[in-house]
């Protein structure tokens, strides 16, 4: 006789999640993005503030394996850039000097840096040949000659972590208020409900703008970073609180909750120990889908110049350089941070959709 295979709820959820190809893809992209953000010092070829006076507003450089005569080189290389000033427009124009090749070296030593601000290191993922006059700007440079790729990678650390920390705070406030509103009911419930209604009827962005404009300009970058994060989460908890409240209302009368109450467990213990775990998967899903709103919020505020400010490098701060169409027409590669934002947000959405289906292994309606 064949033993029927018994799956724990967790295994069933994992199985359902794996069937959701796009969600797995989203998860993989996010792991890659957060990995890059974690090791941005090592992966980026330059530090974000390093200026290259020889390549100001330089367009993205091609990394090649075939040279101008069609010969194949195992070691990828870049051509040198030739600068000419256009006599009519007085703009800098760069062209590739096909005679000069700068081979790329991998896991090579370059300018010193401090990993996570503490560990001194010199190792970099890739750089042009040490000691050569060349440079590699895969995504171009900005108006101060700073490498866009490096700046985007450093920006990933700030932009992506604001999403996570912000959602952590949102979860805390939302679960606390939603939980007690649903569990205690009565006055507490109507108070929380009313505050949610009021907060939701103020347009978010203007309110965020007003609050972050109130952050003192003299604050250190770290303080501003946390200030902006708190502002973003302070108004993001309403949706989550509503959902948690609904769950608590329906769960309040369940047998196991009544039993816990009869045995004299305190309210806090019942809420956090007995009720919360029973829908933690639901909360994780909602949290995943809430991260993009945080990332987009930070980007919008920094873009307007009232969120994070230079010298902090975030995707929003980077996009601030591209505020009018003259700049975009001359140097369209300054829009690259936007592509990273779009990819990150889509990845979170795909992952969240998959988690939602997987969180409820018995629910087959999700297949629609």
């Amino acid at each position, binding site marked *: 006789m064949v033993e029927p295979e018994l799956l724990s709820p967790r295994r069933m959820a994992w199985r359902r999640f794996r069937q959701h190809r796009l969600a797995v893809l989203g998860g993989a992209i996010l792991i890659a993005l957060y990995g890059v953000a974690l090791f941005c010092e090592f992966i980026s070829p330059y530090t974000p503030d390093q200026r290259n006076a020889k390549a100001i507003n330089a367009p993205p450089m091609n990394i090649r394996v075939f040279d101008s005569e069609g010969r194949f080189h195992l070691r990828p290389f870049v051509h040198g850039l030739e600068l000419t000033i256009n006599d009519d427009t007085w703009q800098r124009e760069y062209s590739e000097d096909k005679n000069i090749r700068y081979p790329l070296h991998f896991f090579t030593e370059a300018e010193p840096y401090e990993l996570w601000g503490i560990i001194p290191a010199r190792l970099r993922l890739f750089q042009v040949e040490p000691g050569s006059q060349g440079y590699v700007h895969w995504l171009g440079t900005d108006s101060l000659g700073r490498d866009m790729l490096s700046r985007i990678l450093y920006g990933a650390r700030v932009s992506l972590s604001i999403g996570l920390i912000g959602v952590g705070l949102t979860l805390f406030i939302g679960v606390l208020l939603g939980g007690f509103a649903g569990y205690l009911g009565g006055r507490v419930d109507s108070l929380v409900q*009313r*505050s949610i*209604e*009021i907060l*939701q*009827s*103020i*347009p*978010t*962005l*203007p*309110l965020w*703008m*007003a*609050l972050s*404009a*109130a952050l*003192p300009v003299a604050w250190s970058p770290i303080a501003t970073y946390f200030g902006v994060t708190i502002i973003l989460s302070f108004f993001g908890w309403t949706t989550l609180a509503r959902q948690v409240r609904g769950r608590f209302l329906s769960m309040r009368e369940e047998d196991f909750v009544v039993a816990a109450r009869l045995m004299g467990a305190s309210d806090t213990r019942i809420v956090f120990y007995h009720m919360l775990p029973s829908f933690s998967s639901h909360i994780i899903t909602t949290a995943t889908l809430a991260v*993009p709103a945080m990332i*987009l919020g930070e*980007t*919008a505020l920094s*873009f*307007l*110049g*009232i969120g994070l400010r230079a010298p902090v490098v975030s995707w929003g701060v980077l*996009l601030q350089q*591209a*505020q009018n*169409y003259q700049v*975009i*027409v001359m140097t*369209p590669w300054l*829009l690259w941070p*936007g592509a990273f*934002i*779009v990819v990150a*947000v*889509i990845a979170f*959405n795909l992952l969240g959709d998959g988690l939602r289906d997987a969180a409820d292994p018995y629910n087959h309606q999700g297949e*629609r």
Partner: protein
Amino acid sequence: MKRYILRRLLGMIPTLIAISIIVFIVIQLPEGDIVTSTLDQLTASVVDLNDDRVKNLRAQYNLDQPLPLQYLSWIGNFITGDMGFSYLFSKPVNELVWERIGYTLLVTVSALIFTWLLALPIGIYCAVRQYSVGDYVFTTIGLLGLATPNFLIALILMYLGYTWFGLSFGGLFSPEYLNAPWSWARVGDLISHLWIPVIVLGTSGMAVTMRLMRANLLDELQKPYVTTARAKGMAPGKLLLNYPVRIAINPFISTIGLLLPALLSGEAIVSVVLNLPTTGPLLVQALISQDMYLAGSLIMLLSVLTVVGMLLSDILLAWVDPRIRYGRT
């Protein structure tokens, strides 16, 4: 119905009072006030609050009174239609905001209509042709629209418009119509500029509306009455549009309440990029220079717009859908 509307109108009052208190607190948060920041700039040194000149100025602007009194005089004037004085522009706030609020409303409402005109038919198509190529294509486009920040769409449109057609976008009027009196030609000029912000704002709301319509309609299509009508030989197109679509569309009236704050938020930033004469750029300027009356009035007006929009959507829903009860809920 009349009693329902009346009750909802009365219910708005505590909400608006609470919002006004929040707005007032938020506006008070920055250190210093307009007097100190103006004098800071004038003298390029930190201003001593005990200086006589400062005291006089502060008294002139009612800034020497305790906060609750300042609040009461602010909100009292606001209700009677006097929104105070903008130090930044040296003009009454009333003169600055009304025209801009009008354009904000125009852009936002057009974007709302655009979203529906496009998203509802697409949603219906996706539900009827579930899992078809078109379904996936539209879902992908919707997801892209959802994931791209509004201002980035605006930037990309400007870039494409310039490189492909040599057009420079921005503003709501061509230079020659900027200060011209209203005429049909000016209206035409406005419409020829309006479509860009409308598309930019519309794309972000599209994904949500489209998915919701698709899900609602799929729910309806499974109901027995559809099978019955089909069994009786009703023409498929007529069946679809006359029954399930009509029911599936009702909830969208109530999503005005959800879409409106989102659209107003989006409008605030898109108008900065596209240089529109709406409330967004004014709000940014006011916030950066701590022009309290101007910023406070703008946020307050935007909130009032949202609350009124929600009220209208509720009334509309109650009117359209007879299943909604007017009683207490």
